[in-house]
């Protein structure tokens, strides 16, 4: 399959990693990376961080140096939404915007997800979602003139937007539908510390509420909450998650379950059709998992490339997510949600590592401002505890002596 023609749909984290890796492992056939956006593949993580806060007009951070495509003979097609992927004799036929057909032996779907919007919100330029470079540019510009911001959702992107807006001097309030802020963070200690930092910066939280309706006026947005409260703001950011873009896979007949179902090698149920990144879901020991993190998207793109090149599959790396909020760095390696119980280590003010344990094995951690411990611990995830779990709370013993390598 070294000379198979490969078309990758979605020119972002997973797609660019797949294209780059295919060439790196010696794939000789044509590689085409097709993306709906007009911009060359860029990194999304800065969009809610430096792109919003930088004093100077920011530039996109390219996923690959932009001369990589030409130098590695990767055809980059931008502004080219793929409208269908169909089985054709021995391969696939893709349609770009209902006008152009391209043929491929192998297709990788790296279509990611779209920002979700609650039903009933009006179309108004003061109501933002944040997924693309274009979204970030619009939000950045608006933050420079607005005073009062409301952020809907305190997931990682909502929290980062709130922190960035606050750092820009806006008055910020965050609405969280769940009863606790930052519900996606497994560690209560981390949530508490983050909440304290947000409060110190004057960011307010309202929990257990949603938006009932939002009325644009000349002066701003009048937002009515489910508890009857009425707020007037200049700017609303909606950060309530994404919908995986599974429609091409469904039409091509691939099995989907809250994402396009893949195996360890990113193969879908249709031979020759792969999926990777935020769009891909996997069954793992009875659980359905779909990651929405940079490192996972990258690793899955690489895994798809290796499989296409016919290489032995290597296990996917331990998942790892990070988030930057004010001066905090949150890191979540592994799967803390799978824990039976946890152990907390607090080496210094605001520094936290919460170890998640299941079946006497370390399954994940939630860490605040502890980069070294995270690097060490990440290599031990999946390993069995040697002694008492309480030893994990000690800072004077290297982790390697407390947990066996997996």
């Amino acid at each position, binding site marked *: 399959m070294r000379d198979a023609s490969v078309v990758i749909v979605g020119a972002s984290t997973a797609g660019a*990693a797949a294209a780059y890796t295919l060439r790196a492992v010696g794939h000789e056939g044509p590689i085409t990376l097709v993306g709906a956006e007009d911009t060359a593949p860029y*990194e999304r993580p800065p969009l809610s961080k430096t792109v919003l806060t930088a004093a100077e007009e920011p530039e996109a951070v390219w996923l690959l140096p932009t001369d990589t495509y030409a130098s590695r003979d990767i055809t980059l097609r931008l502004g080219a939404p793929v409208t269908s992927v169909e089985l054709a004799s021995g391969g696939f036929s893709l349609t770009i915007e209902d006008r152009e057909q391209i043929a491929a032996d192998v297709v990788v779907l790296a279509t990611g997800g779209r920002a979700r919007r609650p039903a009933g919100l009006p179309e108004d330029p003061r109501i933002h979602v944040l997924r693309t470079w274009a979204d970030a540019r619009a939000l950045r510009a608006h933050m420079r003139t607005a005073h009062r911001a409301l952020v809907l959702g305190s997931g990682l992107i909502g929290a980062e937007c709130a922190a960035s807006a606050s750092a820009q001097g806006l008055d910020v309030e965050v609405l969280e539908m769940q009863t606790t802020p930052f519900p996606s963070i497994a560690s209560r200690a981390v949530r508490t510390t983050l909440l304290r930092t947000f409060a110190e910066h004057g960011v307010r939280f309202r929990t257990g509420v949603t938006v009932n309706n939002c009325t644009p006026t000349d002066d701003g947005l009048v937002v009515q909450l489910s508890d009857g409260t009425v707020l007037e703001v200049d700017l609303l950011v909606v950060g309530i998650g994404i919908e995986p873009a599974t429609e091409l896979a469904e039409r091509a007949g691939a099995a989907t379950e809250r994402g396009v179902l893949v195996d360890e090698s990113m193969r879908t149920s249709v031979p020759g059709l792969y999926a990777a990144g935020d769009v891909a879901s996997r069954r793992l020991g009875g659980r359905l998992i779909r990651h929405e993190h940079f490192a996972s998207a990258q690793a899955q793109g690489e895994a798809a490339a290796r499989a296409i090149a016919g290489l032995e599959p290597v296990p996917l790396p331990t998942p*790892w997510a990070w988030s930057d909020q004010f001066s905090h760095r949150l890191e979540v390696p592994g799967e803390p949600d799978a824990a039976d119980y946890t152990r907390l280590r607090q080496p210094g003010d605001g520094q936290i590592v919460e170890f998640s344990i299941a079946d006497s094995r370390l399954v994940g951690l939630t860490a605040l401002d502890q*980069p*070294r411990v995270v*690097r060490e611990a990440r290599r031990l995830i999946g390993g069995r505890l040697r002694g008492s779990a309480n030893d994990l709370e000690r800072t004077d013993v290297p982790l390697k002596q407390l947990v066996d390598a997996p």
Partner: protein
Amino acid sequence: MEERANGVNSGGESTGADDLVWIDACLTDDLPAGEMRALESDPPVAVYNVEGEFFSTADTCTHMKSSLNEGYLDGDQVECALHMATFCVRSGKATSLPATLPLRTFDTRVAGNQLQVSVPRAWVSEG
């Protein structure tokens, strides 16, 4: 000879070509196997001890400029703390995404109990 913070001393003696200069990095005893540290040159340079062998590269990650010495050394691979790119400290090669560009590498030598590194003169001269 100019004293600089954190033990970066101009070792005098230039290699001539490319205007490199040997500087003292640290005492070899202060860099045990498996450890790394950064020298306060500008831009900073990192030195590594890989099982008794010394190596040196630029300390600035080619991805988004984090300091590699805040990361993690695993064998001859240094892992950046910011987004987990890895580099081979022997060759400077980027060995995993998100980095693709290599790190510049520098020669090292041991003089007595001193580890020395050959770096561009402009990186260690004032101003």
